[in-house]
């Protein structure tokens, strides 16, 4: 099935829906207070075109987020973004707190509820900090300025003697103060902001920029927080789906007699969908296991044919998932690769592969669905509540306003929960049962029926002169994706192309940092190869080809902290580095590995990562993200691999699919470069891209073995490359 390609994500800021609540309805949601709404600036820009009149009418509806300040001084922030561990509930609250001058603990973040929150495309692409964060800062700053204006008439005196602080306004000359809530005087005020108000510069931040603790941390250590899978509704029943024997299978015959006669069990059969509902999960699982379904499945590509298939089955232009075209459209060319390569004195040619891997979020997909007449409410864990609402609207032929999707803070996603499978299945079961139903996928279902990070093949050719300059770069990525495909190094002659594959064998979707992991693995390993071919130090060779000072700075910072070049590699100990730039973040990673000559086991001993994404909003939260990305990235780098044959996953369990554990943990050191003079960017993804090539390069430095396939050492180090 086609969905969710990278292109779709890259254009994620396109506003495709207008928010259906009008100004009057919006006010009904609240009592007295000040409501400040951000109007989507793009909607205003677009209004210069032919849709001008329509746009002008729609402007009040194109609300992207809003803040409400109540008479009791409590602040409520509404955002369609979802929290799933990236700490945005805290970091967004900090930014509002900073601009509005209210304590963090007076702010309530209402997030990812399609009825209460303005439309949002989804929480992905590291866009929360640069987009939603900036927008909320704008709104909060506007609200602050309005409140100071209001205070001017109450407190008198010169406006520039008035200072907003701690939820109120003080006249510095008279020392008189008034709280925000008192200024509102029982009125309901609404302000739309099309323009960018003056923001507090990051150099002057006192709340943003600090390690504010996770705002609801206590609820997580007590088990009090309710994830979607923890929700309960009166009279709720439990669902179980009967899965096909293989991908693309259709139902040939069904014998559900025994389940139909079981007490309290409802069998649901709708096309190829078969499921049961029962009073408890154990009964539902038992009833589902008695159903005899015969499936007809087509023959499918198996793992051993994967890489030749990816290379040999190009997608036609515009036919790739999500409309991502292949062919000329994906070529980046500069200078003349062919002639530069022909005359190069040192050449390398190599092929890299990356395997399919699974996100394996610890909370598998889950939903609770409840129908009231033709109105449907679904609690589910997803990165895209509004897209899941649309899936439900389509599946059940409902008007949009009849469907509400609520996303409680979710048990992680990593790009793996863009879709609403469990929500749709659960709503179908609940419709048949006439009662609320909970459906939680098993680990095996999550491993099999969610989607995968795309596998890929990457061909690299590089040519250098003996003076140490890289002059020719040819790079072809088959199927894995175009994210970060362009080289950040100065190379005069380049040809870079993404080749999407037609009907790849497994269902593919986004994964933390998308193909930036694969492309950094191939590029940074190749840079290492060229450096060694030239007899140059890998750091020195890179720096020679970097003109972006921020990229240079992360490499130099990581290398310094790591002690790059101070220790000579031995057959049992190696050192490697890698880095790059993507989605506004600069990263450089140094790794030290230990190789056991007897067992051929490889262990990552120490990792240093330097990171720059502009001004740091929460240093502790940011470090947590970076450490976690390194840990998670080690899985795909070293041993994660989905095995499959003929439409079936062969290792759909943690006992068979190895993820990083405590014993894999290296010593991790993070260096944050806090660029207060730059724009803020997100950090949920790019910190993952350096670890695989840094480890691969470290293995090479110890052993001389160049590993060009992810995962690199699923069974320990091979005898040769």
């Amino acid at each position: 099935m086609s969905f969710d390609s990278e292109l779709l994500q890259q254009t994620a800021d396109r506003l495709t829906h207008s928010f259906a609540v009008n100004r009057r309805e919006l006010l009904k949601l609240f009592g007295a207070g000040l409501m400040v709404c951000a109007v989507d600036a793009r909607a205003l820009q677009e209004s210069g075109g032919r849709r001008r009149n329509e746009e002008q009418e729609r402007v009040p509806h194109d609300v992207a987020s809003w803040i409400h300040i109540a008479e009791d001084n409590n602040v409520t922030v509404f955002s369609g973004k979802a929290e799933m561990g990236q700490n945005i509930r805290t970091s967004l609250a900090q930014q509002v707190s900073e601009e509005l001058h209210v304590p963090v603990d007076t702010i309530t973040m209402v997030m990812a509820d399609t009825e209460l929150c303005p439309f949002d495309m989804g929480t992905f692409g590291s866009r929360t900090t640069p987009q939603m964060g900036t927008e909320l800062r704008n709104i909060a700053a506007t609200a602050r300025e309005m409140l100071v204006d209001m205070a001017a008439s109450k407190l008198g005196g010169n406006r520039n003697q008035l200072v907003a602080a701690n939820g109120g306004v003080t006249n510095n000359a008279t020392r008189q103060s008034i709280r925000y809530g008192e200024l509102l005087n029982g009125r309901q005020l609404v302000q739309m902001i099309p323009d960018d108000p003056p923001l507090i510069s990051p150099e002057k931040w006192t709340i943003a920029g600090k390690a504010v603790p996770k705002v609801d941390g206590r609820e997580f250590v007590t088990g009090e927080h309710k994830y979607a899978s923890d929700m309960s509704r009166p009279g709720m029943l439990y669902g179980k789906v009967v899965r096909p024997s293989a991908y693309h299978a259709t139902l040939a015959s069904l014998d559900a007699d025994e389940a139909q006669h079981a007490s309290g069990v409802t069998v649901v059969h709708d096309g190829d969908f078969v499921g049961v509902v029962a009073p408890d999960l154990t009964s539902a699982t038992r009833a589902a296991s008695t159903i005899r379904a015969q499936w007809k499945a087509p023959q499918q590509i198996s793992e051993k044919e994967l890489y030749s298939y990816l290379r040999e089955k190009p997608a036609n232009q515009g036919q790739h998932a999500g409309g991502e075209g292949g062919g000329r459209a994906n070529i980046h060319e500069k200078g003349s690769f062919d002639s530069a390569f022909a005359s190069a004195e040192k050449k390398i040619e190599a092929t890299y592969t990356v395997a399919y891997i699974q996100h394996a979020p610890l909370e598998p997909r889950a939903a609770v669905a409840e129908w009231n007449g033709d109105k449907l409410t679904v609690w589910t864990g997803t990165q895209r509540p509004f897209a899941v609402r649309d899936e439900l609207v389509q599946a059940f032929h409902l008007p949009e306003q009849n469907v509400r999707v609520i996303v409680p803070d979710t048990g992680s996603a990593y790009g793996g929960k863009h879709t609403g499978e469990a929500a749709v299945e659960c709503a179908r079961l609940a419709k048949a049962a006439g009662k609320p139903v909970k459906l939680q996928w098993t680990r095996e279902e999550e491993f099999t029926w969610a989607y995968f990070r795309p596998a890929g093949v990457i061909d690299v050719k590089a040519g250098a002169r003996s003076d140490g300059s890289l002059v020719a770069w040819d790079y072809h990525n088959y199927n894995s994706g175009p994210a970060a495909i362009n080289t950040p190094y100065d190379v005069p002659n380049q040809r870079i192309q993404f080749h999407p594959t037609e009907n790849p064998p497994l269902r593919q979707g986004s994964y933390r940092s998308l193909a930036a992991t694969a492309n950094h693995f191939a590029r940074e390993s190749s840079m290492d190869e060229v450096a060694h071919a030239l007899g140059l130090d890998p750091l020195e060779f890179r720096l020679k080809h970097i003109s972006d000072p921020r990229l240079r700075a992360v490499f130099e910072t990581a290398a310094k902290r790591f002690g790059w070049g101070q220790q000579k590699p031995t057959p049992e100990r190696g050192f490697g580095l890698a880095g790059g730039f993507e989605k506004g973040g600069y990263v450089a990673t140094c790794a030290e590995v230990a190789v056991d000559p007897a067992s051929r086991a490889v262990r990552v001993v120490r990792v240093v990562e330097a990171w720059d994404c502009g001004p740091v909003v929460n240093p502790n939260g940011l470090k947590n993200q970076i450490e976690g990305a390194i840990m998670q990235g080690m899985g795909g780098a070293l041993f994660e691999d989905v095995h499959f044959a003929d439409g079936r996953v062969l290792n759909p369990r943690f006992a068979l699919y190895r993820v990083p554990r405590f014993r894999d943990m290296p010593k991790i050191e993070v260096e944050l470069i806090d660029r207060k003079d730059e724009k803020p960017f997100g950090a949920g993804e790019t910190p993952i891209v350096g670890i695989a090539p840094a480890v691969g390069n470290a293995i090479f430095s110890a052993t001389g073995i160049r590993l060009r396939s992810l995962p690199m050492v699923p069974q320990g180090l091979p005898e040769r490359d």
Partner: protein
Amino acid sequence: MREIVLNINGAEHRVSAAEDEMLLYVLRDRLNLTGTKYGCGEGQCGACTVLIDGRATRSCQVHASAVSGRKITTIEGLEADGKLHPVQQAFLEEEAFQCSYCTPGMILSAVGLLKANPKPSDEEIIRGMNGNICRCGTYPRIVAAIRRAAEAGGAQ
């Protein structure tokens, strides 16, 4: 279905459940003690960890009917008199979580570990916790939290 008497967090609970119903589902679905999580159903991830007579146990691998009369502690039962258990407090202070779905299981595994070994070395912490998965990769912080809890007398 049969009636099972369970001693959970110091209180007696009578539940009606199937003979082969796992403790995990009895806790979550019949007693609404949802702090105990499903992660894999095969004892590989530790999200469902509870204490049974003080020992960290995978509740997805134990029939509820088999632990009748034993002393069961879930994450909801760790806090005493409004005061967090030292291990909970240490997790909070080290911010040893991201999505936190693994956190209750991590905390109970750590409590079990400290009961058996009040002053573990880092190596012993890693060995003792290796059966618990954190997909967000907060392992270094969890080790730091357990170290901190041990120093604060978390073996209680």
